[in-house]
C-alpha cells in the first residue's frame, strides 16, 4: 500500500485558490478514481473535486472552510502499490536542522561528518572565495584542515563562520587539532586526504654512470598512480581455472581464413573469450560491479575494457555493451580499438564507462599472471596462452588445447564462491564452443 496526495485542481482560468465548502468523504472511506471527494468554492465556480486515485482516504489535511491554493495538498489517500509519497515525508524530517552540537563536545562533532562522505568530488576544495580567504587570514585558519560543504568540496563562508563560532580553529602551526584526528593520521601530513596515496613515492635511488634516466611523465605517470591506487586500496584475491578449448581452436581454425577474406580483419581467439565473459557476466552481475564506499553498485551495462599495449604505454579502451554483440562484432571492436591505440587516436570516450576488464596476457606467451584490478571495477580476467598439453579424458590420454584463465577480484565486493561460480561458467561456455554450436555472426 502506498500513499498519494490529492491536490487542489485548477478549476478554471485565473482561479488561483479555492475554499473547501464540504468534504464528501471521511478518513477510512474507500473511493474510486473520479468519485467526488469535496465541494469547492472559488471566485468563479463551485465545483466538486474528483479523486485522482482509487483507494482509501487516509487523512484530510485541509479542513472545511480552508482556502487552498491551486496545487496545494488537500488530503492523503492510500492506494494499491507504491505511492509517490513516502511515509517519512509526511512526518517532519529535521535531522539536519537539529542543533549541530551533540553533548560530546567538539571532537565528536567533527568526526561523524568526516566518515559520512568518504569519497566525493573535491575538485573545488582549493577554490577559495574572497570571503573565505579574508576570514581565514583574520582568524589564522589553516584551510587545508577544513572540510568544505559547497559544490565540489568547496569551503564556503558559512563553513568558516561555523568554525569561528565553535572556537575550534585549526591553525597551520598547531599539530593535529584534536585527539580523534591525531589517532587517525599518525605522523603523515595532516592535510593529505585519503585519496592522496596515489602519489608515487620517491625511494632514494641514485643513477650511476651509464644509467639512463627516464622522466616519469604523462601516461607512465598515470599508470603508476593508478596501479598504486588499485593495489593499496583494493584487497586483491586471486584464482585460476584451466579450460579445455580444443573445440574452440578447431572452430576458429576452420573459420579464420574465410572470415579474414570476408571481413578484412582477423578472427582472434580473444574475441571468443570476450564473448564468453560478457555472457557469464550477464548471469553473474556481482562481478560487473563497483565499490563505492558505503555501497556496491552493480552496473547494468556490460562494458568490457580490454588492455592494449603500445611501446611504454598501456591503454584500456572499452567494448561497449559486449553482451549485445556477436563474436564478429566483438572482433571488429577489438581490431578498431587496438588500431586506434597503436596510432594514438583513442579518445577519452573510447576509454570511459568500463565495468570489467579482460586482459589478453596470452599474447605474450604468459601462462599465469596476477592482474591488477582496473580501479574502481571489482575484477579483472587474464586470458593466458593456449597450450597443447597431454590430458587425461575419460580414462584416455590425449593432446588437448588448454588455457588458463586468471581472475583477480576485489575481496570487499566479491567472495570466492561467486567468483568461482563465475569462472566455472566462463569455462563451461568456452568448452561448449564448437563448430556445431557456435555462430560467429
Amino acid at each position, binding site marked *: 500500500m502506498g500513499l498519494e496526495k490529492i491536490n487542489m485542481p485548477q478549476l478554471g482560468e485565473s482561479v488561483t485558490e479555492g475554499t473547501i465548502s464540504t468534504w464528501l468523504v471521511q478518513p477510512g472511506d474507500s473511493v474510486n478514481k473520479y468519485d467526488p471527494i469535496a465541494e469547492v468554492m472559488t471566485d468563479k465556480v463551485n465545483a466538486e473535486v474528483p479523486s485522482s486515485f482509487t483507494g482509501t482516504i487516509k487523512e484530510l489535511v485541509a479542513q472545511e472552510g480552508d482556502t487552498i491554493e491551486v496545487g496545494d495538498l488537500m488530503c492523503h489517500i492510500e492506494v494499491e502499490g507504491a505511492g509517490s509519497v513516502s511515509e517519512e515525508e509526511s512526518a517532519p524530517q529535521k535531522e539536519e536542522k537539529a542543533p549541530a552540537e551533540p553533548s560530546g563536545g567538539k571532537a565528536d562533532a567533527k568526526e561523524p561528518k568526516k566518515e559520512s562522505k568518504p569519497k566525493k568530488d573535491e575538485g573545488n576544495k582549493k577554490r577559495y*572565495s*574572497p*570571503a573565505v580567504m*579574508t576570514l581565514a587570514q583574520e582568524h589564522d585558519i589553516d584551510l587545508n584542515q577544513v572540510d568544505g560543504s559547497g*559544490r565540489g568540496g568547496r569551503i564556503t*563562508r558559512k563553513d568558516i563562520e561555523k568554525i569561528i563560532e565553535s572556537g575550534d580553529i585549526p591553525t597551520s602551526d598547531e599539530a593535529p587539532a584534536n585527539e580523534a584526528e591525531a589517532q587517525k593520521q599518525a605522523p603523515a601530513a595532516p592535510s593529505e586526504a585519503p585519496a592522496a596515496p596515489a602519489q608515487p613515492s620517491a625511494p632514494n635511488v641514485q643513477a650511476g654512470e651509464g644509467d639512463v634516466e627516464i622522466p616519469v611523465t604523462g601516461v607512465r605517470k598515470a599508470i603508476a598512480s593508478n596501479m598504486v591506487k588499485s593495489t593499496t586500496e583494493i584487497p586483491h584475491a586471486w584464482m585460476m581455472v584451466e579450460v579445455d578449448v580444443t573445440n574452440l581452436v578447431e572452430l576458429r581454425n576452420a573459420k579464420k581464413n574465410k572470415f579474414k577474406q570476408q571481413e578484412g580483419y582477423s578472427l582472434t581467439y580473444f574475441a571468443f573469450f570476450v564473448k564468453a565473459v560478457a555472457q557469464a557476466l550477464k548471469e553473474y552481475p556481482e562481478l560487473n560491479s563497483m565499490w563505492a564506499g558505503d555501497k556496491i553498485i552493480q552496473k547494468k551495462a556490460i562494458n568490457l575494457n580490454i588492455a592494449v599495449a603500445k611501446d611504454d604505454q598501456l591503454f584500456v579502451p572499452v567494448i561497449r555493451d559486449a553482451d549485445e554483440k556477436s563474436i564478429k562484432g566483438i572482433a571488429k571492436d577489438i581490431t578498431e580499438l587496438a588500431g586506434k591505440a597503436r596510432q594514438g587516436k583513442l579518445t577519452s570516450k573510447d576509454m570511459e564507462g568500463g565495468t570489467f576488464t579482460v586482459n589478453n596476457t596470452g599474447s605474450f606467451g604468459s601462462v599465469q599472471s596476477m592482474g591488477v584490478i582496473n580501479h574502481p571495477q571489482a575484477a579483472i580476467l587474464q586470458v593466458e596462452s593456449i597450450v597443447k598439453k597431454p590430458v587425461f579424458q575419460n580414462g584416455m590420454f590425449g593432446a588437448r588445447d588448454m588455457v588458463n584463465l586468471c581472475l583477480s577480484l576485489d575481496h570487499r565486493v566479491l567472495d570466492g564462491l561467486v567468483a568461482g561460480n563465475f569462472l566455472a561458467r566462463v569455462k563451461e561456455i568456452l568448452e561448449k564452443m564448437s563448430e556445431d554450436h557456435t555462430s560467429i555472426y
Partner: protein
Amino acid sequence: MPVISYIQAVTQALKEEMQRDEKVFVLGEDVGKRGGVFRATDGLYDEFGEDRVLDTPLAESAIAGVGIGAAMYGMRPVAEMQFADFIMPAVNQIISEAAKIRYRSNNDWQAPITIRAPYGGGVHGALYHSQSVEAVFANQPGLKIVMPSTPYDVKGLLKASIRDNDPVLFFEHKRAYRLIKGEVPEEDYTLPIGKADVKREGSDITVITYGLCVHFALQAAEKLAEEGIDAHILDLRTVYPLDKEGIIEAASKTGKVLLVTEDNKEGGIISEVSAIISENCLFDLDAPVQRLAGPDVPSMPYAPTMEKHFMMNPDKVEKAMRDLAEF
C-alpha cells in the same frame, strides 16, 4: 488592520492625498468616469469631480507635459500612463524637462509630479502590455523610480511620491493588482523613498529584487526553508536612485547574492545593483553575483508557452536560489 489588494492601496492613497491636499489632482486616459482601465482611480471622479480627475486625449506626451507644467506652477499632479509601454511618447517631457528643471533653474523651479504606470507581464498581454521600462529612466539624475511590491508599500510610497518635491515615476505591477493582498493601516503614513526593505531575514543566500518578483522569491524561500536553506530577501522598493547602504548590508550578510528581475537582463536595474556589490563587497563575497532576468529579446511574447519562458516565476527563482546555496 484591514487586508486590501495592491490596487485598492493605490486607490486609497490617491483618495487620501486628494482629501488632504486640494492641489493634488489626477489626469490620464479614462481615469475619470471610467475610473481607469484597471479601476485604480475608481470613485475619484464621483468624489472630487471633473476639475480634479481629468480625462485626457490619447497623447502621453501631453499628459506628462500638462502635468509637468502644472507641477511647476505649484500643483501636485498624479499622471497615469495607461500602460508603462505607452510612456515612450512622454520620454522627452519626463527626461528633458521634469528631471532637469531643478538643476537647470538653479533651484528656482521644481516639478513635483508623480507619474503612475502599470508595468510587467504574466497577464497574457503581449508586446505593448507587458513591458518593464524602468531601465530606460534609471540613469537620469533628477528622477526617482519607485516600484513597490506589497499593498502596504504601495500606499506608503505613493503618498510619499505625491508629497515629494521632485518628479517620481511610480510603476505598479499589473499582475500584482489583484493577486497580491496584504494588511494596510487605515491611518495616514508614508514610507521613505530611496530605502530598500528586508522582506525576509536569512543567513544562507541573499536575494535582491523588486516588484512582483519579491513575491516569487518569498514563495521560493519558504520552500527552500524546508530543505534548510535560509534566504535573506531585500526588496529594493526604489530602483533609482538605489539604496546603496541597504544593498551592501544585505549582500555582505551572506556573501551569496542572487539578483532577480523580470526585465531583460542586460543593462537593467540589477546590473547596477551588481556593480554596487562588486565595488563594495569583494571581501565578503562567497560566490559570483548571479543575475536571473528575462531574456534579451524585445518583449514578452504572446504565445502562452513563450510568455511562460520569458516571464519570471517562483520555480525559476527557486532553482537559481538552490543552485547558489549549493555553490
